[in-house]
């Protein structure tokens, strides 16, 4: 057992073949420890999203190994990867990606339902988490009736409700203004500190980087440097 939540070993990812092949990641190795708040930064197209997708088991590397909690993801089946995401990870996307026909509370509950948790506990826990992200009043509204910042907080609540080990967020602030971004970051920071949830964020936003305990700088699919905050 190590203290690493995530280990990347010489990971490459090539999109396409032949002349049109894109080397999105060119052999990166890194560790993310339990309780860290890591930002992956770098110019557009440097491979940030690709790296997050590989760690989340949404995509598989062309070569190299992705290890999450000491388990090699290449040995997982699709359903096992789904279960890993369901029980150990939370995702927040740039575009929020909420289920439009469900209320905020139901969106959050959905994850608990997939985990097989009973109705009453689901409802209580979903409302608690929404309360903790400051959305107690908006719990019964649908995504279409919420502002961008509120939607992103619902997405954070959904990612957190299953008490994940690792929260992965790909440009969560891209559609938010600076005030809302700051609020979101403070929320993430408090979760990180209170629950020890490991947080991994890909971002362009220097505002977000300020909250991290470490940044990993990517350029052209390679790690340039790692800066402890």
């Amino acid at each position: 057992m190590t203290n690493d939540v995530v280990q990347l070993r010489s990971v490459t990812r090539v999109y396409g073949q032949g002349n049109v092949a894109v080397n999105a990641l060119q052999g990166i190795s890194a560790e993310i420890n339990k309780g860290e708040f890591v930002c992956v930064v770098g110019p557009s197209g440097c491979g940030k999203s690709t790296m997050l997708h590989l760690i989340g088991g949404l995509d598989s590397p062309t070569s190299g190994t992705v290890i999450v909690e000491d388990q090699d993801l290449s040995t997982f089946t699709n359903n096992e990867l789904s279960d890993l995401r369901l029980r150990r990870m939370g995702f927040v996307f740039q575009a929020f990606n909420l289920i439009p026909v469900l209320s905020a509370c139901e969106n959050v509950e959905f994850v608990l339902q997939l985990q097989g948790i009973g109705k009453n506990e689901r409802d209580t826990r979903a409302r608690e988490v929404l309360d903790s992200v400051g959305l107690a009043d908006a719990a019964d509204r649908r995504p279409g009736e919420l502002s961008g910042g509120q939607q992103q907080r619902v997405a954070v609540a959904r990612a957190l409700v299953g008490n994940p080990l690792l929260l992965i967020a790909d440009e969560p602030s891209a559609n938010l203004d600076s005030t809302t971004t700051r609020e979101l970051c403070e929320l993430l920071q408090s979760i990180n500190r209170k629950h020890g949830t490991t947080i991994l964020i890909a971002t362009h936003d220097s505002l977000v980087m300020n909250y991290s305990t470490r940044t990993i700088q990517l350029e052209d699919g390679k790690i340039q440097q790692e800066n402890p905050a």
Partner: protein
Amino acid sequence: MLSVKVAWRNLWRNRRRTLLTAGAVGFAVLLVQLGMSFQAGSYEPMVEVSTRFASGHLQIQHVDYKDDPRTERFVSNTTELRSHLLDLPGINAVSNRTESFGLVNKDERSYGALVVGVDPQIDPSASHFSDQVTQGTYFDSPNSAIIGSALARNLRVSVGDEIVILSTDVDGSVAFIAPSVSGIFETGNDALDRSLVQVPRSLINDALMLEDSAHRVVIMIDQPMLPEQSSEVITPLVPSTASLLDWRELMPEISQSIRLDKISNGIVYGTLTVIVVLSIANTFVMTMFERTREFGTLRAVGMHNRSIFGMFITETILMWMLGVAIGYLLSTCALLPLINIGIGMDSMGMDQFAGLLFLPDRIYPAVDLKVVLVAPISIGVGMVLSTMLASIRLYRLSLVDALRYRE
């Protein structure tokens, strides 16, 4: 269950599309059910009418009579046979008939005709002839006859006139009878009106030396559409030299026209179903494109492929149930009044045919389990297949591509 809730709400995300699709399902169900119920409703009356002008539902006759009808090929002791038959369950009438080809003469004119001997008290329970007498009466004495209207015209015979019928008896000797015409019938069927004469069976049996024999023991049953059931109970009573035939063997043209009708209607309904299902499949494929990113999100959140597919199928089934409910509602509204009043054949331009094919004047829709289930089930199966077809693309797409998908 949350996923049924999601599925139900997803349906109403695009209200107009859902209503149009459900409406199409409902309308197809209505059309197929209307068509099938009238179709099903037309067969039994058609069989009923045609058997009552001809063969009856079942017949006992000499084994060789059907292929080569000869006077000496008869069934004997028919009065006793009849009373035994009437004791059996599901049998509501038995009438013995003697047949002979003869020459019908009046003055210098003579025409060939089929002479049928019937028991005047009994035969009306198995046939419609007594109702079709348009002039005179249906037998007024043991020495009377009723003849077809065209034959009467050809012979220039009117009610009360005597006719002479020449035929051959069981030994091949010439025999004759001279009944007086008590009635003239008009069935609307040319062949019958032109060449049929009925006389009391006692009269012709005496002349042909047939005693209590008959060529056809005609049996009417409670369930003419299921003759095999009655055949089973009757068979033990059939004499060894005789055989039992049902209307499908006796009037193959009727059972053939029913089969043809079923096939041609089946093709129409099948085509209708395929068209509706294809248009639904098209909608589903478009919907699945729009939902690519949602699919990616659900997978990323940790939902299994099969649960997502289950959700799609649930949506399809809900949409199907909605459509079928609309269809049932519409067809109930349409069929309830028609079950009582029926549709007149004249209103469909079919009255010309009615005489030729023995069609009834009105047909009434018959609703059975097949009518109720065929359209909903075939459309439902089609919709489930369409859902599979439409979602294949999502399962081929990589998760990352699904998440990045822009409409």
